[in-house]
């Protein structure tokens, strides 16, 4: 993209640079491209779903293929689009916001990315190898354990590999926030985006292991003949539901909290005001994260857990509305009395408030167990979680991208195109999903390949399909904007928005080492403080000195390739000796790379202070 260094180097050198990089800013760009690619893929799957449902008893796709599409749409959007796009923002911004030169474990950061990418590719290989998984993104047993073909095996191995990457990312950001803050950057001075990413990372640390365990059990059932979920042998399929949702519910907060962080920063910047109720916002974030682990069974009200369990989980779920409400009102009062500038980043944030409030409202309604007996597994639920995930997470990603694009690439995304994107997407979004609340209660269960004629579901479904295509157009305009901006856009300085936080105190895009000298942080919104006191930038906290930076390495890429090969091996080991061999070769490559990493000293390199002014390392 518009990276200055990239343009000077040859293609081969640039490629090698990205394959081996451990720089959080370049990893952010790779997450953006990878996540963006899968977002488009998941979007096409969504359009196929909506096209199939445009009229009753349509036969655009076959029943079995439809189940593959809906499974891959959900799995792709959650694991391969939303997660990496959130990680793109976290990588691009978080180290800058706390005044760090990189994340705590740059090697691990690169490994996390490559694991995500190869896991995602492995999963999508299933399309060409006998069919994609078809048991829903929730992969409920026994449907998932008995699904014929290898689709679900690809789901298991693909998610296991990319999930490992996510877990590493989470640990990395936790340590980064704990250890790498600049002098004076206390916890209660961290920007909300950093706080939210910090809590999200903690959630990843506790939630993903449940998925890992669940996937292992599923893998043993499918590939090695165990019977954890097989009732015929005393197994129990409900255990999968628990494991999945112990991961799956926090996952929703893993996605939404960073988006909340984006909005907090965006509102405060473009209202030119300090975030209202900062302390309350921080505690609300932590509380949401904590409560997020206590509510998983609200996905299981109809499983038959009994009235006591259902009531407890209903009340716990409703409780989450309180900290969420606190956040909404604090945002509104951040705007109150401000001087509001409305640009693309802000439009997404403003569009988020009503959209997400609706999603939150239906969330409380769903939490009422006795009402959920009607809502559960219908289009009402589909509408609800799209209001939350699109209206919250996707809006947050768009807002964050418009906001931080100049920091990442040195250019502001075109405003006019940005507004067109917002309006088509926003209108399309409500058109698609609002009506689905009603479709659900009118008797349309989710994951239906067809609905019958004369059931009153025709009109609502057609409207919904039209809306989906509006969203598609919006996404295309954004894509065009990215290309347009990188070709035509003008370069901007380090602080195009009159920003308040540390990332705006350094050039755009930032040099390789981010901060030549660690900045001295004197309060919340540190750059704003310096600016109001008449200074141009941050006061350094240390004298200019040599900078120690990590070396590039190809090992994370090699390790991920190894697991990718091993993944195929596991899937085909029972059928082909080739699979059996691939299993060992792949694991051998990975373990060999790990061994190399362990025994070969890699002490990094220094950028000498004399070279700093000349822009060395950029």
């Amino acid at each position, binding site marked *: 993209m518009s990276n200055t260094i990239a343009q000077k180097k040859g293609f081969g050198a640039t490629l090698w640079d990205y394959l081996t990089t451990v720089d959080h800013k370049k990893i952010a760009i790779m997450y953006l491209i990878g996540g963006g690619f899968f977002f488009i893929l998941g979007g096409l799957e969504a359009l196929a779903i909506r096209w199939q449902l445009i009229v009753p008893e349509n036969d655009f796709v076959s029943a079995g293929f*439809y*189940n593959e599409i809906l499974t891959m749409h959900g799995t792709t959007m959650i694991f391969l689009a939303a997660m990496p796009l959130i990680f793109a923002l976290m990588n691009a911004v978080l180290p800058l916001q706390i005044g760090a030169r990189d994340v705590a474990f740059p090697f691990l950061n690169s490994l996390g990315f490559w694991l995500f990418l190869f896991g995602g590719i492995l999963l999508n290989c299933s399309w060409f190898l006998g069919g994609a998984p078809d*048991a829903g993104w929730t992969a*409920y047993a*026994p*449907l998932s354990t008995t699904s014929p073909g290898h689709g679900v095996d690809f789901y298991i191995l693909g998610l296991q590999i990319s999930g490992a990457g996510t877990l590493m990312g989470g640990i990395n950001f936790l340590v980064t926030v704990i250890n790498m803050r600049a002098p004076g950057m206390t916890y209660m001075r961290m920007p909300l985006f950093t706080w939210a990413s910090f809590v999200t990372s903690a959630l990843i640390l506790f939630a993903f292991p449940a998925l890992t365990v669940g996937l292992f059990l599923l893998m043993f059932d499918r590939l090695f003949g165990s019977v954890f979920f097989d009732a015929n042998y005393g197994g129990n*399929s409900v255990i999968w539901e628990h494991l999945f949702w112990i991961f799956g519910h926090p996952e929703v907060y893993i996605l939404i909290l960073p988006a909340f962080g984006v909005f907090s920063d965006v509102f405060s910047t473009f209202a*030119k*005001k*300090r975030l*209202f109720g*900062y*302390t309350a916002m921080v505690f609300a974030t932590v509380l949401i994260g904590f409560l997020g682990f206590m509510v998983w069974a609200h996905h299981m009200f*109809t*499983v*038959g857990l009994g*009235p006591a369990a259902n*009531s407890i989980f*209903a009340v716990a779920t409703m409780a989450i509305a309180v900290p969420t*409400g*606190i956040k909404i*009102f*604090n945002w*509104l*009062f951040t705007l*109150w*009395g401000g*001087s*509001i500038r409305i640009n693309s980043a802000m439009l997404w944030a403003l569009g988020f*408030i*009503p959209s997400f*409030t*609706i999603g939150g*409202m239906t969330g*409380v309604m769903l939490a*009422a167990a006795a*009402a*959920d007996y*009607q*809502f*559960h*597994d*219908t289009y009402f639920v589909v509408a609800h979680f799209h209001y939350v995930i699109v209206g919250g997470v996707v809006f947050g990603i768009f807002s964050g991208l418009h906001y931080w694009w100049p920091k990442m690439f040195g250019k502001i995304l075109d405003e006019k195109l940005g507004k067109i994107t917002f*309006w088509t997407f926003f209108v399309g979004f*409500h*058109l698609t999903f*609002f*009506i689905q609340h*009603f479709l659900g*209660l*009118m*008797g349309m*269960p989710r*994951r239906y*390949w*067809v*609905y019958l004629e004369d*059931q*009153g579901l025709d009109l*609502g479904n057609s409207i919904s399909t039209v809306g989906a295509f509006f969203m598609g157009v919006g996404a295309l305009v954004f894509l065009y904007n990215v290309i347009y901006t990188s070709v035509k856009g003008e370069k901007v300085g380090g602080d195009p928005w009159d920003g308040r936080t540390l990332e705006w105190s350094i050039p755009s895009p930032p040099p390789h080492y981010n901060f030549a000298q660690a900045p001295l942080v004197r309060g919340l919104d540190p750059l704003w403080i310096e600016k109001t006191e008449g200074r141009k930038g941050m006061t350094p906290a240390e004298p200019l000195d040599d900078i120690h930076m990590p070396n590039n390495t190809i090992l994370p890429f090699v390790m991920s390739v190894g697991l990718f090969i091993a993944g195929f091996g596991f899937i085909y080991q029972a059928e082909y000796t080739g699979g059996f061999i691939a299993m060992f070769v792949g694991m051998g490559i990975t373990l060999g790379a790990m061994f190399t990493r362990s025994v070969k000293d890699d002490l990094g390199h220094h950028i000498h202070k004399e070279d700093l002014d000349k822009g060395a390392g950029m």
Partner: protein
Amino acid sequence: MKGWMGKVRALFLLSILSLILSGCGVENLSAFLPKGYGAEVSLDIIFISLAVMIFVFIIVMVIYTIVLVKYRQKKGQEDFVPKQTEGNHILEIVWTVIPIILLIVIAVPTIAATYDLADETDKGDSLNINVTGNQYWWHFNYSEEEIQTSQDMYIPVGQKVYLNMMSSDVLHSFWVPAISGKMDTNPENENTMYIEAYEEGVYWGKCAELCGPSHSLMDFKIVVVSQEEFDQWVSDMQNLDAEATPETASAQEGQALFEQSCLQCHAIGSNPVAIGPNLTNFGDRSKLAGVEDLTHDMLVEWILDPESIKPGNKMTGNYDVPSKDEAEKIADYLLQLKPSEITPESASE
């Protein structure tokens, strides 16, 4: 600014308009038009929570509108720096405490209803039906009455009926929106729920848990009839002669063919074999395989190629496909299986 709000308003008007056009859905299917106890209780909770939530939404939108109207940066004010307020304790307490109260307003009736719907005190004295979800059809076993039937469940109006539910394969979920909320059928444990229908008629049931390719075709019916009609139906079903010889010659040949190649999966009478749907009162049904209109041609098509009607069903490939001619005869036989005057047709009159 005007355009902004205008678009939002137009959007909601459009949605509401389309809603009015399509009404609240179809009777005997829509959860908006409850005809049973569970559906009514759930709808009450839905409206209570919706009312509270709309109240909150209005407050949020009022503040939101004021903010956008009043506090936008005006021309020439680019350098204006607003007051950097840190927060306001009273306000923050207000928007913590009021939501808690509002949530209690929702939580109390929710818990009451949740316990109410799980009540099983009079289970022993009531009609019990064992429900089994199968890929992609439903089986109903009236164990005390010794009646087996599939696809159509007959119940008396105004009576509590207990359903003991299990699955024979993957997860399914039993949902008759107009009568009651749903309950999953699990392979490892029995779930119980009760239903009570207020009006006679035929109600649409649907499977609400993804169960394979034909998940969306796993429809069934609840046939609600008066107590007398129900008793009549029970005695008709109990007293029928499963091996009775049909009248026409073609149906007689059909019977022989059926016994030869279909009976191992499809029971006629109270035989508990249930690899495929019980066909005892097949001729009384309104639908074939839950979704298609039950006609002679359709039935022949099913017998020759069930895959074309329900992808992935468990009959395809597991039986000796008869010739077209034989299929016609079997269809003749099956369609005359009408043990009772009490049918979906009579119930919906």
